[in-house]
C-alpha cells in the first residue's frame, strides 16, 4: 500500500492560520490514508486543534487547501464537513444529559414524518450500526446515567449515524480509566477494519505508539515529523515535539521519609445534598515529611472536595466531620491564611480558576498569597522593589516565558501559567506541598521540570500530597498510592507494588 498510488482520505496542503500575533499553523501538510488510524501529536499550542478545526470547518484557513478523497473542498461551516463525511468527537462531549442515548444520537438529524420523530426507524438503524461496529450502547437510558466511556461511544455512534467516513477524536482518553481507554481503542481498531479513517489528536506518546498506524508531529504550528508508527519510538517523537532532547521519565530515587507527619487527615467526611451520596466518606490518610503520597482516581471521585476540605476545613461547605492536622498542629478550625503560613504550598487543580489573577501582571500573580510575608511587605506597605528583585530570578529559574513581569498572566500560554504558579508556591519553601494535577496541560519538557521540582521538594523534607488523573504521573512520582472512588479511599499500595492494570481496576470501583 504505497501512499503515492492511493487517494488520501484527507489531505491538508499548506494550511496557515494566524490569530493576532500568533501564527497557529504555518503551512501544515498532512496526508491521512483511508482505513488507517493516524495520530496527530504535539505539545499544547503546537497547532493540532487549530488544524483539525479547519479540517472540520469551525474556521477557515488563511491560506492552504483541504482535499477530501482527492477533491478540493471549501467549508463554510461544520455542517459542510459533516455532509462530506467528516465527523469530530470533541474533548468535552456535546450531549444533552437528561435525554436518552437514542435521542442524543439522532438530535439534529431526526428521521421525521409529519412532524413526528420516527424513533423506531432510528432504533433499527442504530442497532444495526452498533452491531456492525461492535459498539454496545443501551439506547433507552438517559445519557447522564451512563459512564463516561459509554458517553464517548454515543458520540462516536452520532458520527456513524451521520455516515462519517473520517472520525476526528480530540484527546479522547483524557477522561477515561485505563480499562476504558483500552476498550475505546479496541473499538477504534474495529472501525478502522470496517473501512473508517480515524484521526487521533493526543499528547500521549504511549497511545500513539500502541494504537496508530501513522503519526504526524507538530511543533509551533509546523509539521516536524511524519512517519509510520512502526518506524519510530517514543524518545524520537518526544524530541520532535519539544525540539530538543527530553528525559521522558524522571528517575525518582527512593524516599527517605522522616518520622513526623506533614499532613494527617482522620475521619474526614462531607455530606452531599439531601438524598445524594456523601461526597467524602471517612477519609483517613497521612503524609510523612519526605514522601510523596499519590491520590489516583478518575476525575470527579471526590479529589477536589478532599483538597478543599484540607485547605478550608473550618468552612462547613467543605467539611462536615473529621479533623485535619498539618505538621503536628490541629488546623481543623483554622482559616486558610493561617494554614498556608505553616509552610503549605498549593498547586491548584485549575490554575486559571484558583491560581491566578489573569488580568493582572505576572508580578502581582507572583505576589499572590505571599503579600503578607516580611519578604514583600513591611507594616502593610508593599515593597515593589523587593518583589521585582525576587520575581525576576524566579521566573528565570522556572523558565516562565516571556521573562516579563508586566504582562498580564492571562497572556501567558497554559504551560507558562503553570510554571508561574509553581514558581510562586515554591517560594514558600514548603514543608507540605499539595499538588493537584501539577502538569495538566503542560508540555513534555515542562513536565520533566515540574516533576523534578516536586521530587526535590520531597528530598528537602516536604511532605507531598499529589492528586492526579494521569496514571503515569502517579506511578512515577508516588512513594505510596491511594485510590479514590466515589469519595472513599478504596485501596492503598506502595511504590512498585501495583500494576497499572490493577490500579485501573480499583479506579473503576472494582
Amino acid at each position, binding site marked *: 500500500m504505497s501512499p503515492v498510488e492511493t487517494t488520501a482520505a484527507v489531505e491538508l496542503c499548506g494550511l496557515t492560520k494566524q490569530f493576532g500575533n500568533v501564527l497557529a499553523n504555518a503551512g501544515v501538510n498532512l496526508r491521512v490514508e483511508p482505513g488507517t488510524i493516524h495520530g496527530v501529536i504535539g505539545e499544547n499550542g503546537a497547532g493540532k486543534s487549530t488544524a483539525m478545526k479547519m479540517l472540520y470547518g469551525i474556521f477557515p484557513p488563511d491560506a492552504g487547501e483541504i482535499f477530501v478523497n482527492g477533491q478540493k473542498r471549501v467549508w463554510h461551516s461544520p455542517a459542510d464537513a459533516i455532509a462530506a463525511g467528516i465527523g469530530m468527537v470533541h474533548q468535552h462531549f456535546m450531549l444533552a444529559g437528561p435525554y436518552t442515548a437514542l435521542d442524543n444520537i439522532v438530535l439534529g438529524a431526526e428521521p421525521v414524518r409529519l412532524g413526528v420523530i420516527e424513533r423506531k426507524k432510528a432504533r433499527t438503524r442504530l442497532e444495526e450500526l452498533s452491531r456492525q461496529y461492535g459498539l454496545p450502547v443501551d439506547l433507552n437510558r438517559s445519557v447522564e446515567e451512563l459512564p463516561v466511556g459509554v458517553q464517548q461511544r454515543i458520540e462516536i455512534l452520532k458520527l456513524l449515524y451521520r455516515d462519517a467516513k473520517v472520525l476526528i477524536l480530540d484527546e479522547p482518553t483524557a477522561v477515561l480509566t485505563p480499562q476504558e481507554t483500552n476498550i475505546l481503542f479496541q473499538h477504534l481498531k474495529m472501525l478502522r477494519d470496517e473501512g473508517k479513517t480515524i484521526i487521533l489528536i493526543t499528547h500521549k506518546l504511549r497511545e500513539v505508539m500502541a494504537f496508530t498506524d501513522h503519526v504526524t508531529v507538530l511543533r509551533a504550528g509546523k509539521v516536524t515529523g511524519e512517519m509510520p508508527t512502526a518506524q519510530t519510538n517514543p524518545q524520537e517523537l518526544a524530541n520532535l515535539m519539544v525540539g530538543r532532547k527530553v528525559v521522558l521519565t524522571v528517575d525518582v530515587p527512593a524516599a527517605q521519609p522522616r518520622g513526623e507527619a506533614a499532613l494527617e487527615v482522620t475521619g474526614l467526611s462531607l455530606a452531599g445534598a439531601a438524598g445524594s451520596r456523601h461526597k467524602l466518606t471517612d477519609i483517613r490518610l497521612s503524609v510523612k515529611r519526605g514522601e510523596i503520597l499519590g491520590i489516583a482516581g478518575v476525575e470527579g471521585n471526590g479529589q477536589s472536595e478532599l483538597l478543599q476540605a484540607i485547605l478550608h476545613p473550618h468552612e462547613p461547605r467543605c467539611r462536615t466531620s473529621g479533623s485535619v492536622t498539618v505538621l503536628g498542629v490541629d488546623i481543623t478550625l483554622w482559616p*486558610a491564611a493561617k494554614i498556608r503560613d505553616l509552610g503549605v504550598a498549593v498547586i491548584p487543580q485549575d490554575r486559571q480558576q484558583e491560581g491566578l489573577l489573569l488580568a493582572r501582571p505576572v508580578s502581582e500573580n507572583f505576589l499572590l498569597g505571599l503579600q503578607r510575608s516580611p519578604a514583600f511587605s513591611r507594616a502593610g506597605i508593599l515593597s515593589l522593589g523587593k518583589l521585582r528583585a525576587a520575581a525576576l530570578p524566579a521566573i528565570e529559574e522556572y523558565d516562565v516565558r516571556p521573562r516579563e513581569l508586566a504582562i498580564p498572566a492571562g497572556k501567558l500560554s497554559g504551560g507558562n501559567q503553570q510554571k508561574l504558579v509553581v514558581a510562586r508556591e515554591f517560594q514558600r519553601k514548603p514543608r507540605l506541598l499539595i499538588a493537584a494535577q501539577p502538569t495538566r496541560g503542560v508540555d513534555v519538557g515542562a513536565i520533566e521540570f515540574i516533576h523534578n521540582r516536586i521530587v526535590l521538594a520531597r528530598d528537602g523534607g516536604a511532605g507531598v500530597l499529589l492528586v492526579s488523573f494521569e496514571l503515569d504521573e502517579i506511578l512515577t512520582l508516588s512513594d505510596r498510592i491511594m485510590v479514590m472512588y466515589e469519595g472513599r479511599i478504596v485501596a492503598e499500595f506502595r511504590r512498585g507494588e501495583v500494576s497499572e492494570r490493577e490500579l485501573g481496576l480499583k479506579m473503576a470501583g472494582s
Partner: protein
Amino acid sequence: MRRFLQPILAAAVGLALGLSFTWFAGENPWHVLRILGKSAFGSGYDIGMTLFYTTPLIFTGLAVAVPFQAGLFNIGAEGQLTLGALAAAAVGAVCPAVPWPVAPVMAGLAAFLAGTIWGAIPGWLRAKRGSHEVINTIMLNFIAAGIASYVTLYLLKNPDTQNPETRPVGAGYLIHQFTMSGGAPLSTALPLAIVVAGLVWILLWRTVVGFEMRAVGQNEAAARAAGIDAGRMRILAMALAGGLAGLVGVGEVLGNAGKFRLGFSPEYGFMGIAVALLGRNQPVGVVAAALLFGALHKGTADLDLETEHVTREVSLILQALIILSVSAEGLWSWMRKRAES
C-alpha cells in the same frame, strides 16, 4: 497611553452627540457649547462653583471605585453621604461650643464613621449572608433618607426657619472658604478630596490590604486559595466606600451650609457611578472625571436660563449621552479583546 486617551475621546463623542441633540431641539449647537463653557469656567465665581460641585463627586466617585476594585457595585453612596452629612451636622449642633480646629476634625470623623457603618452593613450582608450588595445598598438609600428626615424634622429642627434643615453648627466647626472664587462656597474640602484620592491610590496600589482587595475583585477563588479572607475584604471595601461617601458632609455642612439641609444632594451618589466609570475606577481618573461632571453640572444649570429650548431635561440627556458613550467605549474595547483571544 491609549488607556487614558480612550475615555477622553469617548467623552468628547458623547458631548458631540448631546450637542447635536440640542440642534434637533432648535438651538445652534455651537452657541450651546459656548454657553456651557462660559457657565462652567467663564469667571472666578463659575470656576468656583464648578469646583464646588467637583468636590463631592470626587468622594462619591471614589466610593464607587473602591468597591468596584474589590468586585462590588456600590449603588449606596447617596445614602452613605446623606448619613455622613447628617452626622457632621448633628455633632456640630449638639456640641456647638467645641473650638476650631478640634471641631471640624471631630465632625469630619463623625461623617466618615456614619458613612462607614452604612457601607459596612451591605458589605457584611454580602460576605456573611451572600445577599447581593446592589439590592441592599439601594434599600439602605431609602432607609437613610427616612432617618435623615426624622432627625432633621423632629430631633434637630432649626426653630428659626420653615426650611427642612437642622440647627446650625457652632462657629468653630466652619472650615476655610476660598475668597478668590468670588463668593462660590468653595472650601478646603476640595484639597481634602484630592489628598484623600491620593491616599486611596496608595491604599489600592501600594498596600497589602489594597492588593488583597483587588485580588478578591479579580478572582475570588484564587484569592481564597491564597489564604485571603474574601469576606473580610468585601466588608472592608464597602465600609471604606461608605466612609468616603460620608466625607461629602465635610464640604456641604462644614464648608457650605453650616447645617444639614434635606435634599441638598442633586444625587451626587448616583453621579458618582458615572464618575467612577469614566475614571476607570482609578483615583486619578476619578478626580479628572469629577471635574468634568462638576463642569457639566454647573454648565447645564445655566443652559436652562440662557437658551430658549434647552431645558434642564435636555441637559440631563447630554450628561446621559456622555455616560453612554463612555460605557460603550468600554464595551468596544472589551469586544476587541474578545475578538483577539
